[in-house]
């Protein structure tokens, strides 16, 4: 039997051998090019390692005390920005999400809403924050508007995809009763997407808090400004305290929102 000496081999991930080799060779060439264009000053890195060690030491003994007022103020500001941005972002994203769902919106509305979502999703929050700080001045308002803007893209896209995936039979049944468009949305679509919408809102709350910690770097309020100052002054113990606070709050909101999500879904 010829089969007796044959060994079994796991099938490759990409079945076409040409494509497989082309991807592998392309990846190697890219890696070589990318690594070659990397300029590393090893002397500077060695010098910095000391500073890195200082940070590790500081992290072991964070200093919450000496700047406690600034930290508390920054955290409260971050949280208020998060709340306002999440609420308004979601309120605005609902009509946009409805408009961006192909199965219930006319084509012109669909295109406009998709364009808004694309722009909001493309630009990182920090870039948007720079523009809003220029328009509204320094402070938490610019931050809240930035986060709300980012929320619109995120929620709008996911809501639209959800609406496109609904069971059309229910919507058709409502339509068959002679329902108007708002009635169709309220009775045919809303019950199907509501649980996921709530879950996503809680998830977005988490994200907004995390982002609120960085947009302060460009002047949009929140804990980021305090953190940036701490790094600029090489006050690593304060920076460590701020980072630990952020991690603790993120963990708490994540835990809380996962509990709530489990109850809602």
């Amino acid at each position: 039997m010829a089969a007796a000496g044959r060994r079994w081999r796991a099938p490759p991930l990409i079945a076409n051998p040409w494509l497989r080799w082309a991807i592998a060779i392309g990846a190697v060439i890219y890696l070589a090019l990318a690594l070659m264009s990397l300029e590393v000053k090893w002397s500077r890195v060695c010098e910095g390692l000391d500073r890195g060690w200082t940070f590790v030491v500081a992290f072991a003994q964070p200093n919450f005390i000496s700047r406690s007022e600034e930290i508390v103020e920054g955290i409260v500001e971050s949280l208020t920005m998060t709340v306002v941005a999440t609420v308004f972002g979601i309120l605005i994203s609902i009509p946009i999400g409805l408009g961006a769902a192909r199965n219930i919106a006319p084509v012109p509305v669909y295109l406009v809403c998709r364009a808004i979502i694309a722009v909001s999703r493309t630009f990182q929050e920090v870039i948007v924050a720079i523009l809003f700080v220029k328009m509204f001045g320094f402070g938490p308002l610019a931050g809240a508007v930035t986060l709300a803007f980012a929320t619109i893209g995120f929620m709008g896209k996911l809501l639209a995809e959800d609406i496109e995936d609904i069971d059309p039979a229910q919507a058709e049944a409502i339509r068959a009763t002679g329902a108007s468009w708002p009635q169709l949305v309220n009775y045919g679509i809303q019950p199907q997407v509501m649980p996921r919408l709530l879950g996503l809102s809680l998830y977005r709350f988490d994200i907004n808090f995390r982002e609120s910690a960085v947009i302060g770097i460009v002047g949009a309020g929140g804990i980021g400004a305090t953190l940036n100052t701490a790094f600029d002054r090489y006050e690593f113990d304060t920076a460590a305290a701020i980072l630990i606070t952020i991690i603790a709050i993120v963990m708490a909101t994540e835990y809380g929102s996962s509990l709530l999500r489990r109850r809602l879904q």
Partner: protein
Amino acid sequence: MPVTIGDGRREWQLRDRRGQIGLWLMWLVGTAITVAAIEQISGETIWAFVWDAPEQAADLLTRMVPPRWSYLDKIWSPLWDTINIATLGTLLAIVLGTPLGFLAARNTTPSVALVRPLALLIIVSSRSINSLIWALLLVAILGPGVLAGIFAIALRSIGFVGKLLYEAIEEIDLSQVEAIDATGASPAQTLAYGIVPQIMPAFAGISVYRWDINIRESTVVGLVGAGGIGLQLQSSISTLAWPQVTVIFIAIFVTVVASEWLSARIRHAII
């Protein structure tokens, strides 16, 4: 479902009284928190600056248009750096995040009591800290440059890769693992032939998805000095060269849309 019978008619309601009151309370508390937060923010806002925002926006627009296209020649190299930051950072994160995922998954971890909580802590810490903060920290340690950007992206992505991967590992079909085990396979063979093939599509999907996110993130790490197009953006903004800013925005937009398209295509092909 609660039905009340009043003057001979049966009235149907979605919720019973307790549910109704609970819902109402939730709305009340939510609204109160929101209003308090709005109050707080409006107290810290200088409204004079806000009211002239439309003028500011119009002013900004006139400065930004027309874009200075000649500047495009100067941003090819930073754009290449940006893509490298995202790609190399993602690779590094995959290399470090994959073992972390196996250590954190309940069914593959060597010890549920000791190793798993530690791995979860690393995942949560990595996820909680934005890549820009990692960049801030790494620029202070490694000095400004692309290297700091790569590490910043990698450190943020480790948690992401680890979390999604361990969730995928925990959801695998155990009967396949058992079947491999029953052939007398060693633990390493069980891993390679029982678990890895099951999570491979999820793994590839996660990697490409994170790469796509990282392209977006790598455009800003330069703002704090960690290389890439953000450096150019920062210097253009601080010299008020708005026509250049427009060119950079367009470059970022095109890059991000292209990477999103590519990642969607790859994920579609895999799954």
